[in-house]
C-alpha cells in the first residue's frame, strides 16, 4: 500500500452548536492531487485548517505523514503549506518582500531568500510586478503570489483551499497548470473546490463532503458514473425537425429528452457508466441524427454539475436536506445513513 499523506478518522469540529466538521474520514495517498468537493459551508475550510494545525479538532484523529496534528504540530508544520481561501499575503508589502520575508522565516539566508523569491516570481510571471505593493495586483496575480509563497520551501503536502473561486477562466487555467507542475515535482496536493469540473481535471481521487462528512469517495470516473456522465445539448438548424430529433435522441440514449425554450435546442442526460462510454454513446446519437437527415448546428457534452452530483448522491440539492442537519450527533448520523 502507498503511504498516506493525510489520514483522518472521525474528525470533528464544533462551533457553538454547529458541527462544522462532523466525523470526517479521509485517506489521501501521497504524491497525488486529492480533491475535496463540497458546497459552501460543507466544512472544507474548517477541515483544512485542522489539518494545517490552525484549528484544534474537538474530536477524532488526524495524521499528516503519520504525525498527529495535535501532538506533533511542529513536525506537521515543517512538511505542509497552506494557501488559504482568502489571500494570506501582505497587501501593503511588495510581491518580492512577501516572498523574501517567508524565505527568511523558513531559515534561508538573505541572499538565498532573495534568489529564491526572484526565481519564483519569474516562474509565476510576476517579475514585472515584483516591486509593486500587492494591493495593486489583480485577483489572479494575488493568487499566484499566494501559491508561490506556499511552495517556497517545497512542501511535501500543499493545501489549496478553493484556489480558483472568484478567478476569471484564464487565471483559473494558470492555477491548474501550476498545480500540475507542483504535483509532478512530488508534492502531494489536497485541493478543495466547489466545482466538479475542477476536481475532475486535477484530482486522482475525490471526496464529496456535505455537512462535515464524506458522502462519496472515489476516482472522478467512479463518481461520475454514479451520477451519469452529464448532459447533452443539441442545437438544430431547423426548428421544425425538433420533434423528430427528440424521438431519435430518446431512442438512442434511452433517456427522457427536454425541449428548451429556444425552439431549436434540446437537452438530455446520459446515464453511461463512465465518461468515455458516455462520449461514445453521445457520438452514436449524433450519427443517428445525421442519418435521419437532421442538421445539427451545435452539439456539446456537458459535465454533471455539482448540483447534479448532490442530487444523485443525496436526493436533494446541496444544503437543502433539512432533517439531516441536527445538533445531536447520534440522530444526525442516523439521518445520514437513511439518506445514503
Amino acid at each position, binding site marked *: 500500500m502507498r503511504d498516506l499523506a493525510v489520514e483522518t478518522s472521525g474528525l470533528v469540529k464544533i462551533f457553538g452548536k454547529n458541527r462544522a466538521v462532523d466525523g470526517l474520514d479521509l485517506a489521501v495517498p501521497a504524491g497525488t492531487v486529492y480533491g475535496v468537493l463540497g458546497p459552501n459551508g460543507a466544512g472544507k475550510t474548517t477541515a483544512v485548517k485542522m489539518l494545517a494545525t*490552525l484549528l484544534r479538532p474537538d474530536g477524532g484523529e488526524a495524521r499528516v505523514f503519520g504525525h498527529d496534528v495535535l501532538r506533533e504540530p511542529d513536525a506537521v508544520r515543517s512538511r505542509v503549506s*497552506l494557501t488559504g481561501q482568502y489571500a*494570506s*499575503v501582505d497587501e501593503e508589502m511588495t510581491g518580492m518582500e512577501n516572498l523574501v520575508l517567508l524565505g*527568511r522565516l*523558513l531559515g534561508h539566508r538573505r541572499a538565498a531568500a532573495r534568489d529564491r523569491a526572484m526565481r519564483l516570481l519569474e516562474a509565476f510571471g510576476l517579475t514585472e510586478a515584483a516591486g509593486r505593493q500587492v494591493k495593486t495586483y489583480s485577483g489572479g496575480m494575488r493568487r499566484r503570489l499566494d501559491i508561490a509563497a506556499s511552495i517556497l520551501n*517545497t512542501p511535501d503536502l500543499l493545501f489549496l483551499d478553493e484556489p480558483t473561486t472568484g478567478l476569471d477562466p484564464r487565471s483559473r487555467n*494558470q492555477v491548474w*497548470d501550476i498545480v500540475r507542475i507542483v504535483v509532478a515535482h512530488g508534492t502531494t496536493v489536497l485541493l478543495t473546490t466547489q466545482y466538479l469540473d475542477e476536481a475532475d481535471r486535477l484530482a486522482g481521487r475525490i471526496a464529496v463532503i456535505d455537512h462535515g462528512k464524506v458522502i462519496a469517495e472515489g476516482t472522478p470516473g467512479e463518481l461520475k458514473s454514479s451520477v451519469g456522465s452529464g448532459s447533452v445539448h443539441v442545437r438544430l438548424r431547423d426548428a421544425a425537425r425538433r420533434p423528430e430529433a427528440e424521438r431519435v435522441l430518446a431512442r438512442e440514449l434511452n433517456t427522457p429528452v427536454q425541449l428548451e425554450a429556444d425552439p431549436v435546442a434540446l437537452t438530455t442526460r446520459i446515464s453511461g457508466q463512465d465518461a468515455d462510454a458516455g462520449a461514445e454513446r453521445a457520438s452514436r446519437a449524433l450519427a443517428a441524427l445525421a442519418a435521419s437527415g437532421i442538421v445539427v448546428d451545435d452539439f*456539446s457534452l456537458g459535465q454533471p454539475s455539482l448540483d447534479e452530483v448532490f442530487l444523485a448522491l443525496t436526493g436533494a440539492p446541496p444544503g437543502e436536506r433539512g432533517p439531516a442537519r441536527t445538533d445531536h450527533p447520534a440522530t444526525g448520523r442516523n439521518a445520514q445513513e437513511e439518506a445514503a
Partner: protein
Amino acid sequence: MSTTTESTNTPGSTTTTQNGTTTENGTSFAPASETLGAVLAPGTRPPRPSALSASLTFGWRAMLKIKHVPEQLFDVTAFPIMMTLMFTYLFGGALAGSPTEYLQFLLPGIMVTSVVMITMYTGVEVNKDIEKGVFDRFRTLPIWRPSTMVGYLLGDAFRYTMAATVILVVGLVLGFRPQGGVAGVLGAIALLVAFSFAFSWIWTMFGLLLRSEKSVMGVSMLVLFPLTFLSNVYVDPQTMPGWLQAFVGVNPISHLVSAARSLMAGSPDTGEITWVLVCGAVSIAVFGALTMRLYNRK
C-alpha cells in the same frame, strides 16, 4: 457544424502542460515547469531559523510597513508635539509661574504619556493582520511562536523612540534644560522604550482577543486615559484627595514618570527604576503568556 466535448478530459490527460506550455490562446503568462522545477528541487530545505532570527525578521516586516505607509508616523510625531505644546502653555502660567518653568517638570511626564498612548496601535495592527489572513500563514510555519509578536513590538519600539525624540526636540526648543545631560536623557528614553515594549503585550493580547479594530481602540482608551491622567504627570499628587493619591501611588505610570524625571535630572532614583523594571517583567510574564495562549488557540 461544431462539436465540443468537455467531458473527455480524463485525470491522466495532463501531458500537454507537463512541459510548461499552455494551450490557452492569448494567455500572457504560462507557468514554466523548468523555472519552477529549479526552485522545487528537493534537498534545499535549510534548518529552521533561531528565535532571535525569526523575531528580527518580523521586526524587519514591521519596518517595511512603516516604509510603505509612512502616514502612520503622523501619529507618533504630530500627537506628541500637540500634547507638549498644549499642556505647556495651558497649565504653565497657572501651575508654575511660567511655561518654561513648568516644562522642566512636565517634559519627562508628557513624554511618558505620549509614548504609552502610542502603544495602543500595537493591538490595532495585530487585529488588522488577523482579519487579512496573513496570520494563518505565519501560524503554519515551524518557527518560535512568539516571534511574530516580538516582531510587532520591535517595530513599535522604533516608533516609541521616534516619538520620544520628537518630544525631546520640541522640549529643548521651548527651553527644557535637563540637568542629567545626554546620558540622563538617553537613560530615561531607554527605560521608557523598554517599559513600553513590555507594556505593549497587553495590547497584543487585546488585539487577539477582540473582534474588531474599533473595539480594540475602545478598550485601549478605557485603560490608557485613567492610567496616564491619574498620575503624577501634570501636577504634584499632594494636592489630590487621599483616595486618588492612593491610586496615583500604585499606578505604574507614576513610577515610570518619577524614574524618568530622576534620570533626566541627573539623580537616578534606583528604587523607582527597579519598580519600573519589575512592572515590565511582570507585564511580559502575564500578558505575554496570555497573548501566546490566545495565539496558539485562535
